[in-house]
């Protein structure tokens, strides 16, 4: 963990050539890596979805169809670019940038390699110690949340500026959905902050290095925070990405193509690029927060930092496969189901879990809560109280939902009777 004072001193030191070289090197490498990863991700998704649907998928362009994305992208350069007459030309042209740039920037806070098990994860580049990460900022998590919210502006403005009804409806849905799940995302993330006590992503990874229970189970946050924050984060993350089963934004049966209906040629390609880049980044963020990022055992042969990359990449593939698996398996939600899931289930659950976790951690502290003499007994008492409060709050919530329903029945002139089981 880095001293805040040292952070401050570092951040105020003047720039020299090494810093600039390092920054541009990292920027360029990240840029290329992201573009290539998007290319592979599109291929991976198409291939896996085809297999899930008993098809073969792309297999003509390049080995295993690997270059299919490149072929499709190149084709789009040769397509006519259409700006509809009713659109707001300036905003219409601005929106792809607003969508693409935050998608690139979010990746900046993800550490993708490094030796966290025997070292501190730093390597030497251009004569200075640095993490294998674009920007090791002390507010990494806030940066991620900020950038993922900025991406919504691109979608919102794209739909609004098109001057057509389907894109407009798609973008209104997109923003309502994004802000509904943003709260659940933030609350489940707070549980990770609770156990790692830092907003810096490298600190979060370093805390997860090493062994957890019984010396075999990894010390990953997914287990330390008790699985529920991870589940909420995965669902909310999928909804934030507008991926199936939460892709109401571009529900083709109702909204044609959603917010990008009016976009064609390279403008459409940039939205597509941003979408897949966000998917890769979200997978990488989940790996960093819950699965220990690049931390993992070293088996020799390769240098330590490369093992970090191997671990990171294998975890990322599993996560990305999960996203594709969701798409291949789950039917799309209805809009009211989406809102109910987000507001009435995910937000209360993640808030309650955060508070219970906080209570347990405070109770385990020596001299924080002196109910009994031993820390263990304190923890059990806190757990018991938390359980009672949790049940009470659940009952309150259920009562509120049924009150709302009764009111609606009354306004429609119906008597409240219990639902029949069909």
């Amino acid at each position, binding site marked *: 963990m880095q001293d805040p004072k040292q952070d401050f001193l570092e951040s105020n030191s003047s720039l020299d050539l090494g810093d600039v070289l390092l920054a541009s090197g990292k920027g360029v490498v990240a*840029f290329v890596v992201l573009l290539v990863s998007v290319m592979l991700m599109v291929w991976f998704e198409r291939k896996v979805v085809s297999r899930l649907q008993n098809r073969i998928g792309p297999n003509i362009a390049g080995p295993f169809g690997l270059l299919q994305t490149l072929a499709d992208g190149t084709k789009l350069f040769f397509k006519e670019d259409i700006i509809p007459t009713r659109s707001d030309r300036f905003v219409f042209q601005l929106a792809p940038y607003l969508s693409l740039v935050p998608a690139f920037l979010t990746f900046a806070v993800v550490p993708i390699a490094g030796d966290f098990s025997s070292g501190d994860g730093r390597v030497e580049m251009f004569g200075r110690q640095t993490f294998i990460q674009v920007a090791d900022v002390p507010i990494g998590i806030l940066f991620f949340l900020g950038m993922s919210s900025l991406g919504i502006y691109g979608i919102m403005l794209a739909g609004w500026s098109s001057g057509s009804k389907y894109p407009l409806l798609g973008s209104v849905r997109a923003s309502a959905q994004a802000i509904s799940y943003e709260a659940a995302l933030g609350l489940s993330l707070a549980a990770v902050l609770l156990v790692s006590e830092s907003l810096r992503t490298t600190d979060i990874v370093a805390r997860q290095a090493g062994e957890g229970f019984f010396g075999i189970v990894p010390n990953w946050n997914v287990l330390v925070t008790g699985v529920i924050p991870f589940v909420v984060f995965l669902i909310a993350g999928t909804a934030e990405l507008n991926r199936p089963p939460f892709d109401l934004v571009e529900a083709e049966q109702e909204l044609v193509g959603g917010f990008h209906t009016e976009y064609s040629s390279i403008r459409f390609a940039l939205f597509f690029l941003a979408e897949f880049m966000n998917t890769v980044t979200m997978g990488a963020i989940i790996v960093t927060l819950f699965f220990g990022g690049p931390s993992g055992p070293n088996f020799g042969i390769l240098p330590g930092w490369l093992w970090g990359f191997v671990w990171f990449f294998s975890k990322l593939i599993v996560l990305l496969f999960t996203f594709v698996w969701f798409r291949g398996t789950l039917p799309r939600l209805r809009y009211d189901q989406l809102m109910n899931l987000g507001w009435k289930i995910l937000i209360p659950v993640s808030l309650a879990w955060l508070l219970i976790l906080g209570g347990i951690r405070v109770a385990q502290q020596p001299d924080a809560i002196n109910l009994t003499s031993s820390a263990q007994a304190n923890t059990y008492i806190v757990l018991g109280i938390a359980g009672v409060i949790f049940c009470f709050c659940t009952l309150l919530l259920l009562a509120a939902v049924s009150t709302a329903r009764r009111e609606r029945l009354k306004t429609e002139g119906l008597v409240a009777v219990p639902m029949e089981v069909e």
Partner: protein
Amino acid sequence: MAQYLPVVVLAVLATLFAALSFVASKLLAPRNPTVEKFAPYECGIIPGREPPERFPVRFYLVAMLFVIFDIEIVFLYPWAVAHQGLGLFGLLAVLLFSALVFESFIYLIAQGALDWGPLQVSRRQNPARSASRTADSTIRRVGLDGRLSEAVEDDTELSVSSSDEVTKEKVPV
């Protein structure tokens, strides 16, 4: 600020990439505009209405609720990072704050602020199941609005010359 320099580099590269793609597309793409191509997309029908300028107030309600929860998150993050130092005092403060937010959240739900979609009613009460609903009373014949002007002219001629039944059967084709 040296840590943020790579972010700036990445942002510049991303913007340049998008800009250069546009330039390349301008040079490579064909250009033969027609009125139909540049009209708003509507499956070939000429749009009958402007896109709506007003939205259900529910969307604004969701936005306001989001602000409340975001503020809660803003207060929870510093506590989560510093909870070891704050101890019992910090925990109680956060619990009190969350209880207040939760209480207003419950009130909102009870008021029906977060009710979306159709009302869920029992089978017996469902008006869609009443005996008065038959194929004649529920199916509405589609009118001519939104069709191209020539088609409308053709159909008006037909309706003048023939009986109502014939017109209705011919229109959908």
